[in-house]
């Protein structure tokens, strides 16, 4: 059996199409002429700072809010006018939504299980909640609650799963557990729209990300593409004296000062290096990714010891988004 066997509907691709979506609250435009597509089977991340319009966008996709303008098709349906047909096909974890405190895990599953529901016992088992069937919602930990929400989102063999700030407030171990579950959804071919401002989460889970700010799309692509476009610079840092002098000389020592100046010039001439700076005993070598290898090779090749505090800051999605936000006129991170 394949994942398509779980979805007894005609395939629709793209799963989500948004054209010119606009939504305002009290004169403030929250989503501004947004275009978006989610392809079948992909995990798409909506990223951006708080207030970027991510949650409003997914609420419009689910028909929970009526757009002021624009066209939305989700699984070929209009979310607002075809809500009764569409919503059972979407599994969702909404931001700031919960369950009644005294509702037990098994009762929640029974309550939300529709005609298409899968084996609830197996799902609870898979998400580590089989032993919590009789536990009230209020008695679950943060991670258990999020896992329960995932169970509810998957319960009715949803064709599209929307996860909004799924790991907000979870400790690192619980986050990893939830990431693992989402990764397996991805591997199973489920279409997932992940809304997050945790960029390490988007980088770990999403095949494609859409960066938003002030209700508009700033850029989109794979996480690696966004990093390559907006945050190319790597920084190699290490302590000055140990690495450059090679003898552990004290700061201010004539020999060390002379050796250091030569070494800094040599580093500056390495391929891929854009600049070298010194700050309180630390050297920072900036450049593209090739600079990492050349700096390492230079340290080894010149007979210097590899500094114990050598650190390489590789650009990630967070630095890409910050650069993107900073470089967009009228916007700030």
């Amino acid at each position, binding site marked *: 059996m394949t994942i398509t066997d779980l979805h007894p509907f005609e395939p629709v691709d793209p799963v989500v199409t948004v054209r010119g979506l606009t939504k305002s609250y009290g004169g403030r435009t929250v989503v501004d002429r947004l275009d978006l597509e989610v392809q079948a089977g992909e995990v798409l991340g909506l990223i951006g700072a708080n207030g970027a319009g991510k949650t409003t966008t997914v609420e419009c996709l689910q028909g929970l809010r009526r757009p002021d303008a624009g066209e939305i098709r989700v699984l070929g349906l209009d979310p607002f006018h075809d809500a009764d047909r569409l919503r059972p096909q979407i599994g969702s974890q909404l931001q700031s939504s919960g369950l009644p405190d005294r509702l037990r895990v098994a009762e929640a599953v029974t309550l939300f299980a529709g*005609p298409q529901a899968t*084996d609830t016992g197996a799902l609870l088992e*898979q998400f580590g909640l089989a032993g919590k069937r009789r536990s009230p919602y209020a008695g679950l930990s943060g991670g258990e609650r999020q896992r329960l929400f995932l169970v509810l989102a998957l319960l009715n063999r949803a064709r599209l799963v929307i996860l909004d700030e799924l790991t907000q407030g979870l400790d690192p171990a619980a986050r990893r557990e939830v990431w693992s579950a989402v990764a397996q959804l991805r591997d199973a071919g489920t279409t997932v729209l992940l809304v997050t401002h945790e960029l390490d989460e988007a980088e770990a889970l999403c095949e494609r990300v859409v960066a938003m700010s002030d209700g508009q799309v700033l850029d989109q692509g794979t996480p690696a593409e966004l990093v390559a476009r907006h945050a190319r610079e790597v920084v190699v840092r290490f302590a000055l004296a140990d690495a450059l002098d090679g003898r552990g000389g004290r700061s201010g020592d004539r020999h060390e000062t002379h050796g250091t100046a030569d070494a800094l010039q040599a580093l500056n001439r390495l391929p891929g290096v854009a600049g070298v700076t010194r700050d309180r005993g630390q050297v920072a070598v900036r450049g593209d990714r090739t600079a990492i290898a050349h700096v390492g090779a230079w340290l080894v090749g010149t007979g210097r010891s590899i500094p114990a505090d050598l650190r390489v800051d590789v650009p990630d999605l967070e630095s890409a988004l910050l650069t993107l936000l900073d470089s967009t006129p009228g916007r700030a991170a």
Partner: protein
Amino acid sequence: MMTVAATRPAAVATSEAEQPRRRSVTRRLLAAELRLLTRDPLTLTFVLAFPIVSMLIIGGSFGTEPDEVFPVNPSHWYVASYFTVVIGATGLIMLPVHIATYRERGVLRRFAASGFPRWSFSLAELAMGLGAIAIAGPLLLAVAAPVYGLPDVEDPARVAAGIVVASVAFISIGVLLGTLLPSARAAQAVGLMLFFPSFLLGVGGPPPAVMSEPLREISERLPLALANDAIREPWLGIGNGTGPLLATFAIAVVATTLAARRTAL
């Protein structure tokens, strides 16, 4: 360890192993709500315990003989009145707090996003309110019977109509309050502020005959007092309750219309 990809097909293959009973969403929601009702200390206190305890205390405070203040046996006066206290507590305290809690915690959004039919929550709340009254009302009478005796029902049809109309009116008011108030704490505060003056002036407090004229004027116009008169007058044979019944019906129509719109998912 979670293994979604590996076990989802297996989950389908063994779907006969543990399938929840396939009932309609509204029935599932109602079943869940009724279960939760029995676990809610606020409900157990205000809808079940408070009317009974208050009735036992005040029902025995004025003897059993009619006089110039009480046109009938005072104990029976209060037994009949306290059925309305159950209705008032359900509508003004239990439901506003319950629904405001749901709104505050995003439970209603979850119901809506999960494809629950538009009217399922409204119907479930109406049924839950009626269920609470159907349990607490007879329980109150069952406790009153051996202590004070039950007053004869002089006009059963009008009493039944009064109970149904008053119940629908106050359940709708409660649902409406729950959807309007911003938080469970606000709902509790407003609910208590509405309930206790209505309870003391219009239903379970001193009889109208001992009140000052202005206070009596106010008490006669309170919605809970109107509901009480619609039930108590035909029950005790001290009037037909037509005017209060019509007024309560009008309240029910308006409140139900507004509440249904506000609770549509």
